[in-house]
């Protein structure tokens, strides 16, 4: 927005104290917060990143019966450059992971992310070699919508939670919340240990221990193709 730095009490100039107080919300900042958040939360432009079954429910949510435009989201933005909310609907294989990350990096701040469905949130039933076990290892997620797939009402509720989250945001803490290290663009969001911890197997098709044994953590020895 470019707004934060110029605000009293906000941004980097906050340390000097000043007319409106330092760091803590004041009369003026809270009014500006209210106005900005009101505008932001009622005209969200979702970027639908739909891959599988959840995308069909997302389409149902956009169609006439459920009608997301009641919440200010009739403008689906297929371009990440003009989007506020990334709705990741459906399973994300590793082959698609760089695409998701690239789209997230291309979205301008402020931005939010909804992980729709069990597969996007945790891998779901697909605890297999090709699937990302939860997109939170790749992009930061604000709201997880459970279900396989979630009903359109579930998605709408998730988006209303995003709106609630925006309502409580304040410009004074904006910088700290939204700062991104440019060097970390397109890098895994979570550390190796976090990824292994987050993606530990669970569910009924596999053993219940957290980390499976016999799997090479490092890739120092390039697995040679068993077939010449």
């Amino acid at each position: 927005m470019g707004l934060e730095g110029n605000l009293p009490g906000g941004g980097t100039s906050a340390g000097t104290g000043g007319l409106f107080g330092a760091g803590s919300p004041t009369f003026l900042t809270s009014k500006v917060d209210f106005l900005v958040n009101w505008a932001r939360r009622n005209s969200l432009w979702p970027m639908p990143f739909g891959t599988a079954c959840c995308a069909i429910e997302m389409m149902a949510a956009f169609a006439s019966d459920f009608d997301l435009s009641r919440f200010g989201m009739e403008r689906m933005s297929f371009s990440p450059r003009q989007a506020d909310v990334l709705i990741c609907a459906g399973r994300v294989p590793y082959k698609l992971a760089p695409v998701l990350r690239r789209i997230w990096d291309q979205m301008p701040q402020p931005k939010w992310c909804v992980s729709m469905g069990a597969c996007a949130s945790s891998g779901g039933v697909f605890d297999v070699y090709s699937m990302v076990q939860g997109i939170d290892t790749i992009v930061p997620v604000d709201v997880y919508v459970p279900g396989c797939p979630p009903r359109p009402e579930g998605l709408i509720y998730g988006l209303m939670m995003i709106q609630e989250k925006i309502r409580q945001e304040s410009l004074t803490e904006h910088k700290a919340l939204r700062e991104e290290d440019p060097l970390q663009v397109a890098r895994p969001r979570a550390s190796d240990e976090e990824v292994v911890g987050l993606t530990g197997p669970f569910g009924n098709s596999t053993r219940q221990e957290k980390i499976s044994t016999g799997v090479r953590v490092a890739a120092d020895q390039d697995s040679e193709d068993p077939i010449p």
Partner: protein
Amino acid sequence: MAQKTIEYAVGRTPEMGPDGRPTPSPLEPFDIPEPELDSEHMLINIGPQHPATHGVLRLVCELDGETVLNVTPHIGFLHSSFEKLGEYRTWNQIVPLTDRMDYLAPLIYNCAYVMAVEKLLGIEVTERAKVVRVILMELDRIFGHLLWLGTTAIDVGAFTPFLYTFEDRERIYRLHEAYTGGRITTSATRVGGMMADLPENWIAQLEDFLDSFPRTLAEVHRLLTNNQILIGRTQGIGAISAEDAVNFGFTGPNLRASGVAYDVRKDNPYYDYETYDFEVPIGENGDCYDRYLVRMEEMEQSVAILRQAIARLPEGPINVEDPSVSLPSKTDCMSDMESMIHHFKLITEGIKGPPGDCYFPVEASKGELGMYLVSDGGPKPVRWRVRPPSFVNISVISELARGHLIADLIMINASLDIVLGEIDR
């Protein structure tokens, strides 16, 4: 075989049409000489995240100006390794995987899978189960075609049909939900029958839907079939000859649009499809417009089949009376120790099948869906292979699109009716 050639409401030459008005014809390029330009070919990347690719398909096109010289489809962006996962699951546990494969017509996949298992195990399901499965499969054929219709209409610039078709899809969602509890992920079938009998009043709701649905279809026909934009963008676009279509492995509406009357329901019938009175619509030119017309007609035929199936729906049990396959009723499990043990054993050990393999094709909404199962006599398959109709259909896209404009590539892709969950599996 009963066949039907589509009567064209619009002619193919700019003459007077049946309604007395001059019929529109596709746009012809202007006849101007090609200027001598120092030009080079261009590489355009479409997808994998693009609203017009109907999923996470990626097309890399080589263009000369706007003309497509070559298209390389890249798939696998939704590879969820269903087939590997199936090797770790018992026969019944695979059912929930099947509806996540084709989420546009899940019940066809549920039914096709258990039909293959039953064929392998040599189980003959009850008459009622057969008719119920025919009803569910035809209902989902409409379900799948409706989504195709709505999204294809968007691709040629018409948004309204999308809203109309989703209106009717919501009705089918409600029917799904009333029976199975899920809107998309139905998982309705079990080896040897269904997870439950049809609920009360369900048939009445289905009849309600069948009464109102032809009106929606007629409305979409009015919006699109004679629409000059649709005709201009589809006639003569992406045509393929009958011989090529067979050689490239086309099945389903895509093949029939080229004039080959191959429908698994007629040629290799299952569940007494030969006793239902319905016609297989076939096209003449194999272009996008014919594929559109064939699907529109198929929906009407599905309505006819549904009405006949409702009329003949017999009473009786829905699951086979075979304790090695069917679970005891929940009431028995709660009151009778033997039934409880029986239930427990079937769930934990699974059903054992004979060693051997089995390929079972059914006519899905996208084409011939084959389930190939290999068993070694255990409760889990050695190999569960799905013959995906969209996978084979989409592989032809570079042949279809060559020489057309890049805007036509979008229409060709839409007319093939693909679903990426099944292409990538």
